[in-house]
């Protein structure tokens, strides 16, 4: 029983960790010449749209 709980906990932890790391890796940052930077917020429509276009470019 303990072993099952440990394995299940490890798997859940691994999934959560991967999700967190994955979210951090998926980002869009826009810069202007004056040093200003805009990082598109997670879950925003603009972020998803630009990430989809990025995947299209990478798939070429």
């Amino acid at each position, binding site marked *: 029983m303990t072993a099952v709980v440990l394995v299940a906990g490890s798997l859940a932890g691994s999934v959560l960790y991967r999700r967190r790391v994955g979210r951090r*890796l998926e980002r869009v940052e*826009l810069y*202007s*010449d*004056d040093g*200003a930077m805009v990082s598109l917020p997670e879950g925003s429509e603009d972020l998803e749209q*630009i990430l989809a276009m990025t995947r299209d*470019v*990478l*798939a070429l």
Partner: protein
Amino acid sequence: MLSAMDAAQALADLTEISSQVEHVAIVDRDGSLLATTVRDAPRATRLVAGITRLLEEADRVAQARGLPELTQLEASTLEGSVFAVRRAGRMIAATTRPDPTVGLVFYDLKHCLGSVEDTSAETTEQGAGKAPARRRRKADTSA
């Protein structure tokens, strides 16, 4: 005027020093492709078209979020990243493997675009009968 050979040389230098970039393209002021690492012409055209669409959308988003003028873009996914740098009307864009060193990629792209601009300026000066700008030489460290 900048020759395609100058831009191709700049790209060759870039791919030699940067192990992170996979494909690169340099686009001139008029939207024409100056040089690319993609050898297949139709694929190169699709790459430039895709990057152009991406930058158009990024321009719209940047404007909507109050950014005065978009000059650099980093878009990262789990499959890889797309970087773009715009300067003096020209644009250089690159695709990379996942999780690249962002600062290094931007530095290399800016350096490459800068060398294209330098070459262009030298060509113009030579055309006007002026001596080309002196290039900085690496110091001799053998002593």
